[in-house]
């Protein structure tokens, strides 16, 4: 029968293509929107971690401790638990707990700390000598951030964002399990629960294509921006 064995992957007339298109679109914009928020938040948190790391003042120490603690906690919670844990918070924030919009807060809260740690590490890779050179020119801390730290680590920041975006895509699929919409949700509902393996396969292939596009665009951008080698 059509619902068993390898053959069950290739029953393409069982696929609702307009639902598939809709789900693809949801996955793309869920990932894109949360990635934009993650990038902004991650760079700010990463900068806070970097700046507060070696400062001696009490205020800086508190900032470093608090940010580190939050980053470590939210990075450690498995995503599927986090999304359930944050249901009440999501309800208050976006007014609903189903659909793509409802997935965004958990996606951001789980990916931003991950990206923040990468950003901090990237900033630490920036040559101290160059930072000192800018200070010796009479540069302020803001000059150091905007003229050295950010431009000199841009390729690394983009490479990190690529990795983060790809994890976000897989998180959106996991969020499907509790009704977020998108390809994960479609694969779960139409594929798994309706025992329609072709839907699962098609959703998988589309996700692979999205990942491939993100990775390729990321790699090309890094290559274009990086002027360290010829």
């Amino acid at each position, binding site marked *: 029968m059509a619902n068993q064995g390898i053959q069950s992957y290739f029953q393409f007339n069982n696929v609702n293509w307009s639902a598939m298109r809709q789900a693809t679109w949801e996955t793309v914009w869920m990932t894109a929107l949360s990635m934009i928020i993650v990038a902004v938040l991650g760079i700010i948190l990463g900068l806070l971690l970097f700046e507060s790391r070696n400062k001696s003042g009490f205020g800086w120490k508190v900032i470093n401790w608090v940010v580190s603690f939050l980053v470590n906690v939210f990075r450690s919670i498995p995503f599927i638990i986090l999304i359930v844990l944050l249901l009440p918070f999501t309800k208050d924030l976006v007014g609903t707990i189903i659909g793509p919009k409802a997935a965004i807060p958990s996606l951001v809260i789980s990916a931003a700390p991950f990206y923040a740690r990468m950003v901090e590490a990237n900033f630490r890779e920036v040559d101290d000598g160059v930072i000192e*050179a800018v200070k*010796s*020119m*009479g540069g302020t801390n803001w000059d150091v951030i905007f003229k050295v730290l950010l431009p*000199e680590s841009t390729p690394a920041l983009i490479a990190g964002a690529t990795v983060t975006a790809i994890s976000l895509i897989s998180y959106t699929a996991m969020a499907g399990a509790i009704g977020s919409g998108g390809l994960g949700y479609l694969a779960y509902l139409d594929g798994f629960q309706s025992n329609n393996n072709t839907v699962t396969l098609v959703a998988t292939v589309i996700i692979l294509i999205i990942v491939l596009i993100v990775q390729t665009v990321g790699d090309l951008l890094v290559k274009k*921006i990086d*002027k*360290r080698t*010829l």
Partner: protein
Amino acid sequence: MIRFKNVNKKYKLDKSILTAVKDVNLEINDGEIFGIIGYSGAGKSTLVRMLDGLEAPTSGSIEINGKDIAKLSSKELRSQRKKVGMIFQHFNLLWSRTIQQNIELPLEIAGVDKEQRHQKAEKLIELVGLKGRENDYPSELSGGQKQRVGIARALANDPEILISDEATSALDPQTTDEILDLLLEINKKLNLTILLITHEMHAIRKTASKVAVMQDGQVVETGDVYDIFQNPQQDITKRFVNEDDNPNAKDLSMTVDEIIKNYPNGMVIKLTFKGTQSQQPVVSQMIREFDSLELNIVEGSIHQTQGGSIGSLVLQLLGTPEDQNKAVEYLKSVNVEAEVINRG
């Protein structure tokens, strides 16, 4: 005028206190190229970091034109730093910026408008001989060219002082000489005070008029480069002078040993000529003066310093012992320094 007065810098380590700079007193005049030489860890870099206000002295004061650097507010310090250009061993250029953008960076920080930034950068690129490379990135340049960009960048804000912190230490000898020539040119053209931090006596000899020798955080010897070269007092200074004077010291002592073996009756002497003496035929006159005298030339060299030239010649005198001794007396009488290395 830069003045270091009783400057000390101590670092607290876990259990001990490290004294990086100890009781340093120096005066550096405007328009002068002043060398500070010492091996790594001697405290040279700490000294210049304090001059730029990147670190504060534990005690003592550092004044630039009467202003105490440690007493400036952070805003005053930032504007003071614009008057001090700095070049570094590893160039410290931003790889994400083109040559032109790197040179414009200090001007951006100083808030100079775009049009003026471009004009200034163009002039500086021409001054350091990099015309046509404006839009290249640092990764496309050689070490010497990168340092030229570093120099142009350091000059962007028309500084009064240029600090060169081991700026030639990562470069090959020929490129080092090119960069040193450029520094000399800039010093003369712009009447800029240059503070040259290095561990190479060669760089000091070629450019500086005055030098301070540092060891273990202290200035152990200071004075005119010319005097220090002729007459080094401290062991460490002698070592630096020798390294430059005679990089083949080992070869020389082997050659001397061999000559002594072949001519056991000869006397090996080292002559030092200063200034115009090095241009006079002292040695040929000496040979003519004493009938039995003959000589072997072992080694000779001549060095230019900013104070004049210094030559050295190692000879073996052959002939009767009497004439040998008289020859040394003769040399002393014409004011050539003669040091007997080996008496036959």
